[in-house]
C-alpha cells in the first residue's frame, strides 16, 4: 500500500468522524424541537450536542494534525472549554427555569425538589419577618 493511499484513507476516516458528529448534532436538535419540557430539552441540547461537538472538534484536530501537519492547540483548548462550560451552562439554565416556575412535563413521575424549594422559601419569608 502506497503512502499516498494511506494518507487518503486517514483523511476519509477523520472526515467520517466529523460527519458522525454532525449527524449526532442534528439528532440532538431534533430532540430540542420535539421533547415536551425545558428540562428534557436541555438534556438533548446540552448533552448530545457535547458529544457531537467533541467528535467534530476531535476530527478537526486530527485532520489538521495529519493532513495539514499542524498541531492545533487552540482546537484542544476549544474541546476543553466546551467540556467545562457546557454542563455549567445547562445546570444554571435548568435551575433558573425551575426557580422561575417553569412546570415539569405532566408525564413526570417524581419531584423531590418541590419540597426542598418550599422549605427554602419558608425560611426566607421567616427571615424577612424577623428582620422587620
Amino acid at each position, binding site marked *: 500500500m502506497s503512502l499516498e493511499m494511506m494518507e487518503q484513507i486517514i483523511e476519509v476516516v477523520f472526515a467520517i468522524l466529523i460527519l458522525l458528529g454532525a449527524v449526532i448534532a442534528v439528532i440532538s436538535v431534533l430532540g430540542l424541537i420535539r421533547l415536551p419540557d425545558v428540562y428534557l430539552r*436541555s438534556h438533548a441540547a446540552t448533552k448530545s450536542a457535547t458529544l457531537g461537538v467533541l467528535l467534530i472538534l476531535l476530527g478537526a484536530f486530527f485532520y489538521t494534525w495529519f493532513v495539514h501537519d499542524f498541531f492545533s492547540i487552540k482546537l484542544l483548548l476549544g474541546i476543553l472549554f466546551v467540556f467545562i462550560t457546557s*454542563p455549567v451552562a445547562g445546570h444554571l439554565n435548568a435551575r433558573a427555569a425551575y426557580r422561575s416556575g417553569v412546570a415539569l412535563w405532566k408525564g413526570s413521575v417524581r419531584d423531590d425538589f418541590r419540597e426542598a424549594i418550599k422549605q427554602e422559601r419558608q425560611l426566607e419569608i421567616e427571615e424577612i419577618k424577623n428582620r422587620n
Partner: protein
Amino acid sequence: MMRMIRKTGAVLRLIAMFNKELLMSSVTVLREVLRPRLNIRPGIIKLDTELRSDFEITLLSILICLTPGTLTLDVSGDGKTLYIHAMDINDPDELAAQIKGSFERAIMEVTR
C-alpha cells in the same frame, strides 16, 4: 511515590469510566429522541452524597451534567443533597445507587 502511581491510576479509571458512561447514555438519549412515540418517565430525584469538599461536589455535579440523561438541578445549601433531573426513571433508588456506585466511588478514589 506509590501514592502518586495509585492516584494516577484512579484518575485514568475515572476518565475511562466517564467516557464509557458518556457514550452509552448518549446512545440511550438519541434512541429515545428518535423513537416515534415518546416513552419516557422523567422526574427529579434526590441524591444524598457522601462527598464533602467543594471540589468533589463540583466534580460530581459536572460529571452528572455531562452524562446525557441526567442533569444536576441544584445542590442544597449544606452540600449534602443533590437534586437530579433524570430522563427515564425505572426505579429512583436504583438510579441513585448506580450514580453513587460509579461516579462517587471513582471520585473518592481520586481525592482521598
